[in-house]
């Protein structure tokens, strides 16, 4: 083959940047192992908080920033169905009255993917080189599931992690109640939704719960840990990349 390796711009997402850099490094590791050259252009947020608050002007301005930063790459990959969904499904609609902007948004949309979908569907990665001794369950985050069709991809990859057993979660496709600003605007409702989710998770008896979106994971971890549960919470990329020596989400350091 004479083609040069694909250049991937990693859209790390604002939550992972701030709360859980390990997921970013896990994504880099997985992408590099799959033969990509990964770069991380300066970035802030995809603009979804503004978009969902009805502030189109800000959403659009942030979209322009992302488009300009990521245009040079062959692919844009995000370890989040929510942010990838924002770029892929919603950016073009922000430029309804700006034909040039729309073309650029559509071009970016066409090459933007969520991590597990990109690895499995686009690059054809069928197995990962990782080991995880434990029973895990998996929550299907809404945007990834319904906007991007992510369901089988993470499961296919998880099935190749040595030592891992996947136990399916009842109502895995029902929202965990995070919803961005929703969780603080409607805390009681959100609490009720995440309580139901936590109960289903605990009912599996799994020792780890995984998902592909950090927003959901922070919400789920926050609830489970407030209630004293000891189940581990991790982003799916951490397990796929074998970066599981680091404490799980919300866990203290230095236990090892």
């Amino acid at each position, binding site marked *: 083959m004479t083609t040069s390796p694909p250049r991937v711009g990693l859209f*790390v997402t604002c939550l992972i940047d*701030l*709360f859980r850099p390990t997921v970013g490094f896990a994504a880099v590791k997985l992408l590099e192992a799959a033969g990509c050259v990964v770069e991380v252009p300066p970035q*802030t947020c995809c603009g979804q908080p503004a978009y969902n608050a009805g502030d189109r002007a800000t959403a659009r301005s942030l979209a322009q920033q992302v488009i300009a930063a990521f245009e040079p790459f062959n692919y844009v990959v995000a370890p989040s169905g929510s942010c990838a969904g924002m770029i892929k499904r919603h950016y073009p609609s922000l430029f309804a009255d700006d034909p040039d902007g729309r073309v650029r948004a559509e071009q970016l949309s066409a090459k933007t993917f969520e991590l597990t979908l990109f690895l499995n569907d686009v690059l054809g990665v069928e197995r990962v080189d990782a080991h995880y001794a434990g029973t895990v369950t998996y929550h299907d985050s809404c*945007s990834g599931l319904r906007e991007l069709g992510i369901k089988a991809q993470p499961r296919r990859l998880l099935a190749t992690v040595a030592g891992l057993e996947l136990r399916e979660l009842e109502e895995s496709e029902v929202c965990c109640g*995070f*919803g961005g600003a929703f969780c603080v605007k409607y805390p009681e409702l959100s609490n009720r939704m995440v309580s139901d989710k936590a109960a289903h998770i605990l009912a599996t008896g799994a020792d780890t719960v995984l998902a592909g979106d950090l927003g959901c994971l922070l919400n789920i971890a926050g609830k489970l840990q407030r209630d004293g549960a000891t189940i581990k919470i991790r982003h799916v990329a951490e397990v796929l990349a074998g970066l599981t020596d680091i404490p799980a989400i*919300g866990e203290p350091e230095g236990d090892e």
Partner: protein
Amino acid sequence: MQATSQAFQRNVSAALQNPALQKALKNIKIGFVRKRAAAVAKLPEFELLRDAGCELKNHVLDHLDFYLERFEAKVIESGGQVHWARDAAEANQIVLEICRSVNARLVTKGKSMISEEIGLNEFLEAHGIRPVETDLGEYIIQLRHEHPSHIIAPAVHLNRDQIADAFQAHHAPYGFTERREEPRALLDEARQVLRQQFLRADVGITGANFCVAETGTTVIVTNEGNGDLTQILPRVHIALSSIEKVVPTLEDVSLLLRLLARSATGQELSVYTTFSTGPRRRDDLDGPEQFHVVLLDNSRSGMLGGEFQDMLRCIRCAACLNHCPVYGAIGGHAYGWVYPGPMGSVLTPQLIGIEVAAQLPNASTFCGRCEEVCPVHIPLPKMMRHWREREFARHLTPAAARFGLGLWAFVAQRPKLYRLATNLGAWLLRRLAASKGRIRSLPLAKGWTAWRDLPAPQGRTFQQQWAARRENRL
């Protein structure tokens, strides 16, 4: 109906703390969600039907004037009358005048959400006419002076005890002095009480799921047969509908019926599907002497051609309510007006004003489950977002939220400043967590920490670490 949508947050608290309601809401999953899934799984062409249903409704909305006029002409041809109502007040007045023209005292009613929308029962009562609901669920909530909490299962918020209480309190005059609790016994009791009303009513009022342009027919679906008795026994039948319910042909009705029953209750067809064309003809064995159709606009025409037009495709199947995690947590009354759930969160601001209903389109995680099951592909989350946009543009968004968003937007549009802010934020949150890995209480994020811990950042931000790693590599 007096809207309480403004008190949505309070309504939510009350609903979450109402054990009877919470217990009743659990039935939705078993009664509706699973049955729908099973029915859909049995019909391989269901997805194709959805596309066809969506296209059909789009076609109708693009030619609404044409089909409405055709429908009217056909109703007249078959001996009926069509009345056009711009708003609730006009619709109520029309119904009242028809009732008065035949000196009606007692009116039986089949289930109709339009009747709820215009507040017909209250209006008739205020004018000395007694409306009696004949759909069992509607009848129960009428006894309890409540409004429906669901568009196809109006009493879904109640349990058997509450129903037994209501019957005991109201049925003594009909000879039922003993409290009964067994479902079959309750049903028989309701049936006997209602039968007397059916026979005495002067006017029967039903809704209409569809109005067929090619024949001037109105169509209702029920599972109890009460709709048939409502419209056949009295001298006058009034069908209440709204302008978007018109469809071109009977063939089109059959398409939508296949979608409707499966999406609603997981049935292949409802138990009764009743077609009404004009009043009783000379050789008919039964039927009303007069047949009236009231077609309500109530600001629906204002949705045509705009960003909410898609909402007019709605066939009121309630799948979006049944699959909504917010509806499932709080039930229908918390929404504070006639139409609850996702379809209500889009429709209600249009019908009673975004000022009153602003909370509704905001109270969604945009999980998208409603759109996923909507038989006519209505992009409900997108339309809730449109309402948020309107709200934001009109400065109706609460000041604190606006300020927070503005501050965040300012920083997020300046990557260098943003990195500085997140570096600082990561450091600060870690300090607050000490070595515990999470924060139990954060005054600025009370909405979060009142109910859950906040996992602390791991350390320096990804971008900080990435920059350091690159420097090391170079």
